[in-house]
């Protein structure tokens, strides 16, 4: 029973980017509990200044190698908002399909490759290969299919080409839709196996009353691509008021900004989305939730991974329906748009200030561009999901450590590492990753 511990995890594996966990407790009292984000800032907002708003999505998709589609989608949404362009229903459906595939891809990788080694008790991903190589292959099969659908839809596995402000430069032909349908059907058995695997997993018990923030809207579908900003604490806000939600501030130990809304911190991601929009899930996802014992509101951050399983089922179901609908009703190829940098004035340009809000795999993502009369970006702001979560992770850690201080250092360290991993942080995108320091006094 240490009660007095000093934890320094200098290298937290299985998250994206670099960060440290620092915990100092003496005589049962928590003195310090930090999630240090030690990545260098990446200055994407600065890079956007002076660039055409029509190329913003190609630049910002490079913020992230796994959320490239979400960055593209939020970027074109912000651009269209600034320019006063309303996308067609067909464009919206195709964008939803793209986002479904990216969320599915990202969730599967987190569930299998990052979270599973802890939950299956094998300790590392390398060990998982030794004990569960068929399972690892399943994850990679699923990832490949998601990537292949993206390739068909937007021209590349990552960093989409065809998705631009105004629509798509290339629209899927019937054979493309049929290919996507075949790919998605091929995913189903592996998805069933994923749910079966999740049923065997047990998660640490820990709850902390938390504010959850995600997109909400009045439509019938689970909102991922558009909506207002919802909070479990209320009120609902227009996306243009995102700064009143994020309230970013800096702390000395983090190169990522922290965020807070109605409480000292808030959480975004699968758990937030499910807590706010559970009723809008498709029946298959709801059945999965029931089977996994997931009943919102859920305040256990470790169950974010369960939330990702449920959302994976949701995204596959939703994507399949979109493709089937297009196969039945066809794609209007006349909607194809070629804009480039708008040298030919294909789209009307005006000075404006546009905001995009999209649910990336790790949570709500904001882009905000201010443009001049020529469509050049004069100011940009990107608020990344992990940056919104870092403060909340720290608050979780501060609540968790006193409860588990009676455990061994190794157990405390693992519990903290698993907690951070449960958020599936993309630290490199928020600014980058994780080290934990633990030393007995």
């Amino acid at each position, binding site marked *: 029973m240490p009660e007095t511990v000093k934890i320094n995890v200098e290298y937290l594996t*299985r998250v994206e980017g670099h960060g440290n966990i620092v915990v100092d407790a003496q005589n049962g009292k928590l003195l310090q509990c930090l999630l240090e984000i030690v990545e260098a800032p990446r200055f994407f907002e600065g890079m956007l200044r002076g660039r055409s708003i029509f190329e913003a999505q190609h630049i910002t998709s490079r913020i992230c190698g796994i959320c490239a589609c979400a960055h593209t989608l939020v970027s074109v949404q912000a651009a269209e908002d600034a320019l006063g362009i309303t996308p067609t229903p067909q464009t919206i459906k195709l964008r939803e399909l793209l986002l479904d595939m990216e969320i599915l891809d990202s969730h599967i990788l987190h569930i299998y490759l990052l979270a599973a080694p802890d939950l299956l008790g094998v300790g590392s991903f390398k060990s998982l290969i030794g004990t569960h*190589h068929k399972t690892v292959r399943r994850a990679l099969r699923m*990832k490949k299919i998601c990537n292949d659908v993206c390739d068909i839809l937007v021209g590349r*596995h990552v960093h989409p080409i065809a998705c631009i402000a105004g629509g798509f430069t290339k629209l899927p032909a019937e054979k493309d839709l049929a290919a996507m349908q075949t790919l998605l059907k091929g995913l189903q058995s592996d998805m069933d196996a994923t749910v079966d695997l999740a049923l065997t997993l047990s998660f640490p018990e820990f709850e902390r009353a938390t504010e959850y923030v995600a997109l909400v809207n009045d439509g019938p579908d689970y909102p991922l691509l558009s909506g207002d900003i919802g909070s479990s604490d209320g009120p609902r806000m227009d996306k243009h008021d995102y700064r009143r939600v994020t309230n970013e501030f800096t702390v000395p130990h983090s190169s990522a900004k922290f965020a807070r809304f109605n409480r000292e911190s808030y959480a975004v991601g699968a758990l937030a989305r499910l807590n706010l929009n559970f009723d809008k899930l498709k029946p298959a996802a709801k059945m999965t939730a029931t089977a996994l014992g997931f009943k919102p509101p859920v305040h256990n951050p470790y169950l974010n991974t369960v939330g990702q399983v449920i959302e994976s089922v949701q995204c596959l179901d939703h994507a399949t329906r979109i493709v089937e609908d297009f196969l039945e009703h066809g794609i209007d190829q006349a909607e194809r748009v070629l804009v480039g940098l708008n040298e030919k004035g294909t789209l009307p340009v005006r000075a404006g200030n546009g905001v995009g809000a999209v649910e990336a795999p790790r949570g709500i993502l904001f882009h905000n561009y201010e443009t001049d009369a020529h469509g050049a970006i004069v100011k940009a702001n990107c608020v990344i999901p992990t940056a919104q979560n870092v403060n909340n992770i720290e608050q979780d850690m501060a609540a968790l450590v006193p409860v588990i201080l009676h455990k061994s250092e190794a157990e405390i360290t693992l519990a903290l590492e698993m907690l951070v991993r449960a958020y599936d942080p993309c630290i490199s995108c928020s600014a980058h990753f994780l080290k934990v320091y633990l030393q007995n006094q």
Partner: protein
Amino acid sequence: MSTELTPEIQAALAPEISGNTVYVLVGNPWRGDDGAATFIAGRLRNARADAFIIDAGNRPENCIERIISLNPAKTVFIDAADFGAQAGAVRLLAMHDVARDSISTHAFPLPVLARLIEEELGSATAMIGIQIHSACLGQGMHAAVVRAAERLIDYLNARLDAGL
């Protein structure tokens, strides 16, 4: 500088006498010298029925099912690398020497992929690295890296053409 292939590298590159050999060429042609393997892949002439070329681009993990389906006796990864030598140096790398073997959702390291193949098939893997000069976006390949790639192309084509 010399880009001679050492006997050790030649042995690693040579097709297996018995069983299939799969060459997995990894890299991003948008990133300067990181495109070396893709450069090689596009210039190989494979006439052997027991050798297979896979241009894996920057997503080698997406090729795992294809690799395993070929049931290789040996899988050779060829990738640009930075091992502190002069640009264009070619080296047989030990998988444990490849620095990035920490998994994330954003990157699937080659040593992990090699381990998966070894676990699944019990067959050998090798990794050939070509020392980069720069892997910055939008640059062409350095002349020394091009020469190294051409040396590998010549060596491989001689074996893949003639079935030696």
